[in-house]
């Protein structure tokens, strides 16, 4: 076997034994969302939104703000992230009648989609934002 074929074979095999625990892709988030919401239909609301920077350097600390102050009777907020070792970043349980806004900072390891869920008396609401990788510190792609 020549060297090039051998290298191709090794690359294909290493792809097959990729560790799934460190590769929480969007499927992991979907499973977590389904488990949390008990497969309830998720709705969107213009007053429930998540603020994330559009681009960030990898391994940077990224501010995430989830605003649910205009939703009525919010009892729980979830912040979920894909392509990272831990799917559920934060969960906020609030007393009924509060109008929560949650802001946390997250260590970014890969470009990802950050999803926020809000549980209310009227069902579950979802909002999400994507963080792309910033290639250099000067703002260029």
């Amino acid at each position, binding site marked *: 076997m020549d060297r090039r074929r051998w290298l191709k074979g090794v690359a294909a095999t290493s792809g097959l034994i990729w560790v799934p625990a460190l590769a929480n892709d969007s499927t992991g988030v979907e499973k977590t969302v389904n488990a949390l919401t008990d497969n309830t239909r998720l709705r969107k609301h213009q007053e429930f939104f998540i603020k994330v920077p559009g681009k960030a350097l990898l391994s940077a600390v990224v501010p995430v703000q989830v605003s649910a102050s205009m939703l009525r009777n919010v009892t729980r907020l979830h912040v979920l992230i894909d392509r990272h*070792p*831990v799917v559920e970043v*934060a*969960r906020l349980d609030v007393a009924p*009648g509060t109008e*929560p806004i*949650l802001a*946390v900072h*997250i*260590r970014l390891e890969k470009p990802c989609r950050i999803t926020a869920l809000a549980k209310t008396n009227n069902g579950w609401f979802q909002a999400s934002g994507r963080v792309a990788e910033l290639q250099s510190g000067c703002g260029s792609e």
Partner: protein
Amino acid sequence: MAGFRRVVALLSYRVVAAVSDIRLKARYRNGITELTLRIDHPMESGLRSDRSGTAIPALYIKSIDVLHGNVALATLTLSSQVSRNPTIVLQLNSPVLGDRVSVKWLDNLGESNTRITTVKG
């Protein structure tokens, strides 16, 4: 040797966690109280290793309780993905000007700390 280093790292992080401080501000504006808290904490995910290759043990804040008197206003559960020295902002409409609000955090090694403040205008 690696085990000894791991124990030393764990003990040093416990000391850091024990002396870590909470900076807590509570501002009341337009009917809403904004709580800003910054906790000095390493928030180690357990996935990193030091220069010698020894794994740094996980040490992160698991939960933060916000209390108004004896009533729980909010409970925040965090994961190891949250950054070092977590800064958290919560806007709540329950405590008003002059009320006392307490914040208590608990990490995965059982260390905890509490801070009480008065809501200011």
